[in-house]
């Protein structure tokens, strides 16, 4: 593999005399170049500061247990297959399907629930499930999202993900 050859140095480069070569100095110079040419955008820093509002001790986190992007074999010929996600928190399971047309999901065990579609620290759109625990949104979330599920006294939030 090219990369590995690159890392290991071919053609006897190991004998290169590093002598008084100050790697710390070159690294520091490169660090300063990065600070000028590829810095962390200030807007992103601020978004991360604001993300403190997402710190929620009362909600249980539903972990991602299936992501078709990672766990599924791509369907041959399907140009734009739906993204299938499953989240679980204890006995609660949340199945979600994302397409370019929107978002569909089902809460199990089925029942009435309120589902907030979070896109960041800002206020969220709220959906309501039917008796089967199903819910739909006409537009897919853009960018990072999480679903906050209210069933009775219980609050469950899915792990943050990118669409």
């Amino acid at each position, binding site marked *: 593999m*090219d*990369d*590995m050859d*690159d*890392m*290991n*140095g071919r053609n006897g*480069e*190991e004998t*290169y005399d*590093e002598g008084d*070569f100050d*790697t710390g100095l*070159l*690294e520091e*110079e*490169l*660090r*300063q*170049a*990065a*600070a*000028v*040419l*590829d*810095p*962390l*955008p*200030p*807007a*992103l*820093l601020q*978004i*991360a*500061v604001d*993300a*403190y*509002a*997402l*710190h*929620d*001790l009362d909600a249980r*986190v539903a972990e991602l247990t299936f*992501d078709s*992007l*990672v766990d599924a074999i791509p369907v041959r010929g399907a140009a*734009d297959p739906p993204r299938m996600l499953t989240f679980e928190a204890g006995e609660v399971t949340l199945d979600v399907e994302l397409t370019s047309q929107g978002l569909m999901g089902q809460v199990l065990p089925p029942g009435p629930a309120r589902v907030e579609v979070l896109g*960041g620290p800002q206020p969220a759109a709220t959906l309501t499930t039917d008796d089967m625990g199903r819910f739909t949104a006409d537009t897919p979330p853009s*960018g*990072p999202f*999480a679903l906050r599920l209210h069933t009775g006294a219980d609050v469950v*939030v899915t*792990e*943050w*993900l*990118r669409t």
Partner: protein
Amino acid sequence: MRAGVIPSAAYDVVPYTRGGTVERREVGALVRSAVGGDAAAWKAIVEGLGPLVWSVVRAHRLSDADAHEVYQTVWFRFAQHLGRIREPDKAGSWLASTARHECLKVHRNARRLMLTDDPQLLDRVSEDGTPEQSLLEAEEAAAQSERVRRLWQEFEELGERCRQLLRVLIASPPPSYQEVSAALDIAVGSIGPLRQRCLRRLRARLEARGTT
């Protein structure tokens, strides 16, 4: 890894005591304060470790849009897991590792894959002010900025693994080797030797161009 990357003490005598770790000794305490409701502690964590997350994301060559979204996802998830982080002292490694996983997910999603090998990249206008402007503002001497530009260009043209390692290492403040290990999934013991090798390569490139 081949035999060529067996860690050697001579390469790097202080792999665990780089500058960043000293400043980050308090990370565990900051995390605990943030869990307790201290917004200033959270801000300090973001300011101390945000550049590391950015470096990990940039090391993975995502498009700007993907890079921004991955960065946000990592911090949203960290905020969400704040009270459940098992080892608060290793928050930096948690963030680096989460960033890496999200970056790999982007690469897996072929629809989103967009390499940024574009030579125009350095001249791109970012939404947060142009690098050109900040460059000019930051560097009074034109010769100096030209040197920075050449250094960056040679860095960008290093082999992919070297470019990736160095991009993480040059976060500011500098990451600990544990964080670099989490960011790139390489053994802590091999980071020192690889770092030496990659910087040596970079210097050789600069010398070949007569830049040093």
